[in-house]
C-alpha cells in the first residue's frame, strides 16, 4: 500500500468536507454552549458547571456522530453515483488505498472538528472557572477546565472512528440512505451490546444465549467508550481502560476497513 496515495486521498477528503461547510458546526457548537451557559445558571441550583460540562461533551459527541455518519455514508457511494469513481480508478491508485485514504480523510476531519470544539469547550469552562467566586469553586467536585475531560473526548474520538469505519463499510455496497440507517442502527445496538452477553440470564435456550454471546463479540461495545459521567464528577479513568479501548478500537476499525476493501475490490463498475 502506498502511504503517499492514502495521504493524498485523505487530504482531498478533508478539503472536500471544508468546502461542504462541515466546520460550520463548530460555530453552532460555540453558540450553543455559550448561550446555554448563560441560561443554565438560572435554573440549576448551583449545578451550572456540571451541566455545561455534560452539555458540551454531549454536543461534541452528537456533532461528531452526525459528521461520521452523514459524511461517511457518502465517501464511496457518492463517487459511484457521480461516476467520478471511473476517473479515480483510472489513476495509479489501488482500491484498498482509496478505502484507507477515504477513512484517513474523515478521521482528519473529525480530529480537527473535535479539536476545535474541545478548545472552545475548555475556553468557556476556563472563563467560567476564572470568573466564579472562590467559595463556589471550592464546592465543585472537579475544577471547571479539568484535564480529565480530555480522556472522555479522546474516547469519543475513538468511538467516532469506529462509526466512521462502519459507515464507510456500508457505503461500499449499498445506497446512502440504507447505509445511514444501518450505521445508526449499529451505533444504537453498540450501546446495548453488553446486554447480549447476559442473554442467558433472561432466556433459557442455550442456542439463543450462544447467539447473543456471538453477537456481543461481533458488535462494537460502544458503551465502554463512554466515561463522560465519570470525568464530569472528577473520578479517575483507569489507565488500563484507555489502553484496552485504544487497542479494541484499532482492531475493530482494522476488521471493518479490510472487509470494506475486500467488498470494494470485487465491485464491478461497468
Amino acid at each position, binding site marked *: 500500500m502506498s502511504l503517499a496515495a492514502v495521504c493524498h486521498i485523505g487530504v482531498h477528503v478533508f478539503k472536500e468536507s471544508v468546502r461542504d461547510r462541515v466546520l460550520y458546526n463548530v460555530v453552532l457548537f460555540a453558540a450553543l454552549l455559550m448561550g446555554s451557559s448563560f441560561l443554565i445558571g438560572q*435554573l*440549576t*441550583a*448551583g*449545578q451550572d458547571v*456540571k*451541566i455545561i460540562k*455534560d*452539555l458540551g*461533551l*454531549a454536543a461534541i*459527541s*452528537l456533532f461528531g456522530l452526525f459528521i461520521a455518519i452523514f459524511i461517511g455514508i457518502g465517501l464511496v457511494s457518492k463517487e459511484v453515483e457521480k461516476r467520478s469513481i471511473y476517473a479515480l480508478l483510472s489513476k495509479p491508485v489501488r482500491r484498498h488505498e482509496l478505502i484507507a485514504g477515504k477513512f484517513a480523510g474523515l478521521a482528519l476531519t473529525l480530529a480537527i472538528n473535535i479539536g476545535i470544539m474541545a478548545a472552545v469547550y475548555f475556553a468557556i469552562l476556563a472563563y467560567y472557572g476564572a470568573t466564579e467566586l472562590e*467559595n463556589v469553586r*471550592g*464546592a465543585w*467536585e472537579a475544577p471547571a477546565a479539568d484535564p480529565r475531560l480530555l480522556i472522555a473526548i479522546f474516547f469519543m474520538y475513538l468511538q467516532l472512528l469506529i462509526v466512521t469505519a462502519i459507515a464507510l463499510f456500508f457505503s461500499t455496497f449499498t445506497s446512502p440512505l440504507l447505509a445511514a440507517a444501518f450505521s445508526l442502527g449499529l451505533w*444504537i445496538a453498540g*450501546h*446495548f451490546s453488553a446486554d447480549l452477553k447476559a442473554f442467558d440470564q433472561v432466556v433459557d435456550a442455550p442456542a439463543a444465549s450462544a447467539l447473543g454471546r456471538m453477537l456481543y463479540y461481533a458488535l462494537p461495545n*460502544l*458503551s465502554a467508550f*463512554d466515561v*463522560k*459521567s*465519570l470525568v*464530569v*464528577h472528577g*473520578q479517575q479513568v483507569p489507565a488500563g481502560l484507555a489502553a484496552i479501548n485504544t487497542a479494541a478500537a484499532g482492531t475493530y476499525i482494522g476488521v471493518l476497513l479490510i472487509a470494506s476493501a475486500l467488498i470494494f475490490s470485487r465491485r464491478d463498475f461497468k
Partner: protein
Amino acid sequence: MNPSTRPERKSRTSLRARSLAIGALVLLAAGSVTLQAARDRHYSQTATEARLMYLQSPGVADRLALEYDALAADVYWIRAVLHYGGDRLKDPGAGRYELLAPLLDLTTSLDPLFQIAYRFGAIFLAEPPPGGPGRIDLAERLLLKGMAASPDRWQYPHDLGFIHYWQAQDHKTAAEWFRRASLLPNAPEWLGPLAAGMLARGGDRQASRQLLMRILEDAEHHWLRQSATRWLRQLDALDRMDQLDAMLARYRAQLGPPASWVDLIRAGWIPGVPVDPTGYPFELNATWSTTRLSPDSPLTPLPEELRR
C-alpha cells in the same frame, strides 16, 4: 429604446422587485405576530398543567438515554428544581410536590454520582408542608440510594442524621447516623463529638444551634446555607416565644389575661407588637396567654420537639 439604458432599467426593476419582496416579508411577519396576539386575546387555549412524567421507570430512562444519560440526568434535575421551586412559590398549602421524589429518583438513576440531587432531594423531601411534602421516608430512601452508589461519602449519612434529628426529632437514630458519618474518609472532626453529645443530652436547643452553626459554616451550596439560616431563625423564634410566654405569665398573674398585644403595649410592658426574626408579628393566644407563630410566617411550622 436606447440599448445602453437596458441594463440600468433591468437593475432598477430588480431593485424594485427586491424592495417589494422585503416589504411584503415585513408586512406578513407583522401580520402573523398581530394575528397570534389577537388569537391569544380572544380565543386563548386552556392552559393544561404539565404535571406528568412520560418516563416513570429509571431503568427505561437509562436505556433510552444511550450514552447521554448524564445529560438526561441534568434535564430531570432541572425539572426537579423547577417543580420544587414552582410549588414552593404557590400559595401556602397549594404546593403538592408529588413529582419531586420520582424526578429525583430518575435523576439519580441516570447519574448515580449526582451528589447534589441526593442531598437537595432529601432535605426538601423531608421538609414539612408548606415548604415540602414532609416525606421523611422518601428522603431516607434517596439518601440510602446515594450511600449505595458512593459508600465513602460522609455527607449522605450526615444528612440522614440531620433529617432524623431536625425533621423526625429522633435524636438517637440521628446520633447513630452522625457516628457512622464520622467514621468515613474526610469527615469533619466535629461529627464524632456531636454524635456523642447528642446521645448524652438528647435534642436540646443548644445542641441544635451548634449543629446548625456547623452546617452553615460548612455549607457548600447556597440553598443549604439558606435552609440552615432559616432553621437558625426558627430557633431564634422559639427563644423569643419563650421570653414572651414568661412575660405573659407574669402579666396574667399581675393584671389578668391580656386580650391582645395592645394591652401589654398600653401597660408599657412591650414597645410594640413583637415580631419573629423574619418580621412577621407573633400572634397572641388570648385563652392560654401564650405566643404562637403567624401561619403566614416563612418560619412555619416550627419543630415541635424543641418547643419546650
